[in-house]
Structures are given as structure tokens and as C-alpha cells.
């Protein structure tokens, strides 16, 4: 058995993991909060992406939209990450081999790299295109990848429960 699998099986055997699985309400409640966190996070991210693409708030400077959503993006992320971790702990052994779970982790890494690249490159020159109704192509590429990656994460996340 690979080390990582051993680790996942061990996590599943801890009293904490067992407690979440045994409880009738713990899993659905954590799951609901997880979805709420996703709505706040992805809703915020999508708002900025759609602004970059020139679909909404064209008259609003990009930097202002970015500032308005930042706090909520991080709050949503904190909620999503914490609850996601709890759900993963509860089903660690099952999730190890779940292809949808693995795909979701890969997509999460990619979606984390996306804003990193965006902020280190094209967003540095935001002052020169802040008020443009449609952002430059490099920013639009970041926006499209963000929308696609987050959609993929939601799809993969939901599929975890369907694939055994």
C-alpha cells in the first residue's frame, strides 16, 4: 500500500473522522456550509472575471471591482477550505482512490496558480487599462481560465459523490 494511501486510511480511522461519519447531521451540515463558501468565493471570482471580459460593470474601473470582491473572495475561500478539509478527513480512505477527488485537487492547484500569475504579470500594469471596458488579452485569458477551472472544480466536486 502506498504511503499516501496508508496515511489516508489512518486519517479515516481517527476518532475525529469517525465522529463526522457516524453523525447523521455533521456531514450534510458541513457540506451545506461548503457549498455556501463556494457560492461566495466563486461568485466573487466570477464577478471580477466577467468585468475583465467586459460583460458586466464596464463603467467601473477594474481595480475598484477587484478591491470590492477581495475581502469576500478570501472569506469564501476560508470557509470552503476549512469545510472541505473536514469533508476530506471524514472520507479520506474512500477519496484516496476517487478519480473525481484527484481531479479536483489538480484543478485546485491550477486555479491557485492562475491569480498568482495574473497579479505578478498583467495586473501590475492595471493603471494603464483600469477604465477600459474590456481588459487586454492576457487579462482576458486569465479570466477565462479562472471561469473554466472553477467550473471544473464544481463539476469534479459534485462528481466525488457519484463515483465509487
Amino acid at each position, binding site marked *: 500500500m502506498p504511503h499516501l494511501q496508508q496515511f489516508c486510511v489512518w486519517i479515516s480511522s481517527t476518532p475525529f473522522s469517525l465522529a463526522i461519519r457516524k453523525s447523521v447531521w455533521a456531514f450534510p451540515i458541513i457540506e451545506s456550509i461548503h*457549498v455556501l463558501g463556494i*457560492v461566495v468565493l466563486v*461568485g*466573487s471570482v466570477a464577478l471580477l472575471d*466577467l468585468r475583465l471580459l467586459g460583460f458586466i460593470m464596464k463603467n*467601473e474601473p477594474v481595480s*475598484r471591482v477587484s478591491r*470590492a470582491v477581495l475581502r469576500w473572495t478570501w472569506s469564501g475561500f476560508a470557509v470552503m477550505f476549512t469545510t472541505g478539509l473536514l469533508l476530506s478527513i471524514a472520507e479520506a480512505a474512500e477519496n484516496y482512490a476517487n478519480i473525481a477527488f484527484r481531479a479536483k485537487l489538480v484543478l485546485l492547484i491550477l486555479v491557485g496558480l492562475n491569480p498568482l500569475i495574473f497579479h505578478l504579470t498583467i495586473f501590475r500594469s492595471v493603471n494603464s487599462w483600469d477604465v477600459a471596458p474590456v481588459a487586454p488579452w492576457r487579462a482576458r485569458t486569465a479570466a477565462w481560465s479562472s471561469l473554466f477551472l472553477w467550473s471544473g472544480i464544481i463539476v469534479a466536486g*459534485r462528481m466525488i459523490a457519484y463515483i465509487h
Partner: protein
Amino acid sequence: MLSLFHWLASTHLSIALANSQWAFAVIEVFHLLSLAISGGAILYFDIRLLGWGFASQSERGVARSLFPLAIIGITAMMISGVLMVASGPVRYYYNPAFRLKMYLFGAALVFHFAVQWAISRRNEDRKTAIPDRIAAVISLLLWLSIGVAGRAIGFV
């Protein structure tokens, strides 16, 4: 109303959905994707009314700019929602959580969009007022309860 659900169950669409292994999963994912879009658009309008974001932009401006996105998102949710119900109409008809969700959805739809429409038609920009904040809280509570009732459909 029950006959409407029985009629829906007898359609080709409903039978095809009920017999398909993946149709429900695909529609449910689509429902969740629309939730992120409509949820975001609705949330930010309410956030603006509460004075927690977009403070530099007028309430009227935010109401107008987020209106199309909210409508597109809600429409996508309704289409995918109807398809989910079509996969087993009679089962949904007798599900108390589903009924509750529909009542709440009707209330939220009327309340939220009446507020957003009224604010988008204001002639002048005003400072954030108490009634606007109360409206935002009611809207958020309504949408939140819809989410809870929706999740409960699978459990009752």
C-alpha cells in the same frame, strides 16, 4: 397541481431523464454552476445595500449592472431545476422540503427583484438607508433558506 406533475412524469423528456444514469448528475452540476453565478450577483447587490462593498458606486448603479447577471443565473437555475424535477415529478410533489423550497423561491423572487427593480429606477442616488439594509437582510435570509431547503430535499 398534482395532475400537472403526473402529466410531466408522462412526457418523453421525463421518462428519458428517469432512465438515464448520468442525466441527473449533469443537470445537478449545471444547477450548481448557475447557483454560483446567480448567488454571486444577488449577494453583491445585497452587500452593496448593507454598505459592505462597492461603497464608491451608487446603489442604483450596482442594482443596474448586476441585474442581467442575476436574471441569467436565475433563469439557468430554473431551467435546470425543472429538469431535475422532471426526472421524478411525483416524488418531488410529495417531498415537503421541495414544497417549502418552492414557496420560499416564489417569495424571494418577488421580494428581491422588486427591491432591485425599485432601486435601479431611482432618480437620484441616496446614502445607504435603514430600509435598504433591512431589505438586504430579508433577501439574504430568504435565499439562504432556499439553499437549506434545497439541500434537505435529498434527505427527507
